[in-house]
């Protein structure tokens, strides 16, 4: 049984990666050719990839007897799963297939990073230390998945917005984004997704603080991960503040959403690989 599950997780990783890659390419083709079939194939491969991603996570949950949220490898898998889930919801709800061309490279690149840089030691199911056995940690990471996933989608929307906004200056770009909804719709959608993601990011920080208080007796210790999550929170708070109070919309808001997502990526990758701290396991 375990052997089967191990094979399933290893094979599932490559199938998911491949499906996300094909989906990304078809989304690009659709943007260029406006061919409906390309869009349908892109969605189909996205769904296949997401199902593969789900199977890996379920298999790993059975193998580890816990949710797969304990190390960097597991977090990347769940981050991709959350990002694609939120993207599929947005695509189906708002009929915005063009967004896939800008969102799907994120899970594809993240999974490529896993395959290229992570060794078998990181991928193997390992026992977790007592500090990680906490329901607050589960809540902390679960909220992070939805927050980061939604920020990834808002990043895609911001890029799409900038493309559409610049379509007047280039006939090539204009041709690519001719079927993309109006820029006001993109702007408002991006704002709504950031509202959702920001609420969840606040929960991420609060649940992390509660967990730290139970585990170490210090709810805040200026650990690099904590500090960078606070910086990310402040960047998005400035985005919301500027929009609410000074009517910052359009290009400026789109650029701020891109900067915010760069901070999200640094909070996850940069801190793990460049800065040591309490979050060395994820």
């Amino acid at each position: 049984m375990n052997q089967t599950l191990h094979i399933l997780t290893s094979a599932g990783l490559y199938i998911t990666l491949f499906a996300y890659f094909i989906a990304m390419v078809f989304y690009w083709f659709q943007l260029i050719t406006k061919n409906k079939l390309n869009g349908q194939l892109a969605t189909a491969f996205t769904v296949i990839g997401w199902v593969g991603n789900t199977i890996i996570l379920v298999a790993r949950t059975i193998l580890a007897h816990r949710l797969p949220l304990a190390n960097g490898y597991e977090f990347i898998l769940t981050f991709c799963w959350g990002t694609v889930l939120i993207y599929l919801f947005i695509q189906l709800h708002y009929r915005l297939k063009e967004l896939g061309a800008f969102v799907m490279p994120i899970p594809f690149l993240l999974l490529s990073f896993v395959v290229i840089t992570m060794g078998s030691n990181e991928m193997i199911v390992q026992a977790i230390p007592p500090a990680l056995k906490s329901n607050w940690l589960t809540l902390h990471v679960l909220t992070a998945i939805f927050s980061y996933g939604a920020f990834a989608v808002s990043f895609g929307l911001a890029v799409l917005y900038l493309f559409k906004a610049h379509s007047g200056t280039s006939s090539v770009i204009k041709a690519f984004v001719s079927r993309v909804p109006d820029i006001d719709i993109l702007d408002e959608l991006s704002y709504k997704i950031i509202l959702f993601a920001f609420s969840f990011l606040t929960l991420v920080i609060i649940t992390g603080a509660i967990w730290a208080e139970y585990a170490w007796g210090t709810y805040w210790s200026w650990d690099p991960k904590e500090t960078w999550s606070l910086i990310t929170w402040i960047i998005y708070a400035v985005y919301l503040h500027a929009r609410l109070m000074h009517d910052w919309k359009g290009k400026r808001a789109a650029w701020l959403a891109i900067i915010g997502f760069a901070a999200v990526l640094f909070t996850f990758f940069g801190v793990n690989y460049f800065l040591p701290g309490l979050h060395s396991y994820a």
Partner: protein
Amino acid sequence: MKKTNQTFWHFFTSMKTGIIILGLIVLVAGLGTFISLDVYSSVCFKLLLGILCINIIACSISRFKGLRKRIHHPPIPRNINAVPHKICSSITGTNDDLFCNLEKNLRSRGYRFTSAETDDGWAFVAQKYRFGYWGAYIVHIAFVIIIIGAMMGTLGFSGGFMALKGEVISFNQIPLNKGSATKDYEIKINSIEDRYLANGERDNWYTNISILREGKELARGNTSVNHPFSYDGVKYYQSRYADYALIVIEKNNIKQEELVMLGQTSNEKEISNELSHRFKQRVDKSDLYVKGLKLQNRPIVYLQIFVTDKGEPSVVNLTPGQNRLVFDEYKITLLELTNATGLEIKSDPGVPIVWLGSGTLLLGLIISFYWRPLLVSGIFTPQDRSGTLLMGMYAGKTIKQNEAEFNGILKELQRIN
């Protein structure tokens, strides 16, 4: 003087100040993660947080009156220029019918309707989800609460100690690394356990402790990682654990007891490798050094004995009660296996306040984001027997959504009229 006060007030109530301070905090906090200096404890960083706190309090005070007015007495437009124009439309009809239908329509949709007579007609304002205006205000108050909680944390204390099973430590003997505290009770370590699950995975480290005063037990409980024990406002955190072996070294009929700290291994093949990574412990007042390792979940101890001028060390394995002769002159007996626990103690009176602030922050965000106020206002200008109602809706930050709501109101009104 008055002018200086006004300048200060203007500075601290300015949103620009807040944004600049936030930017500086981001910059300093970000730099602090790259350099080895503890910038977060520096006066400059604390000063920035202090100014931000003052800025938030000043902004909250200065905006309170306006916000209250906006919620309870929203302005009724006195002329057509005061009607929201981004989402706007007009409708014709007779004076009374239009007024009645409009009021009925808006009230049925949950709007709070207020009207007033103008020079030649009437005007109205209607609000829904008006308490949503409090959202952003609550968020700012939450920050102040969190900062107060964090400041109250400086009134607390923290420290830590290592203790063996059965040891009784007076609270006042615990070395503190922050703050000061005196308590008239002792802490007894009843039991220490390194517990494993059936699958071999470590479950947790458990320490059972009693709080004693003059020998009488006041409280008793377990502490383990993620589950601190709490008594009298002090929390006891499980932070370290160590196995020990109590051994007796006998040479020329002279016996000496020694407590040896042990490492742990689950793999017998790795013993020599694991031992090579451990520090040598000198047996008190002797030329003998020891390294120790315990097999995980089994009462077997491996001791590596070094004696000055004896060359290569000798490795022996013992279970409690067993003895071995090393270098033909030292008789090593393993009396018993014991363990020690490392507990951190903390008292932070600001923690409940920080949680209150965090809860308030979430509440404020939810109200602010998902309880968006809707405001419709308009002015009726009569012409002969009928007249024209120009009405508009405040666009807010979600124009499309508000536009849909406004169109719904308009459609209903046109249908009735």
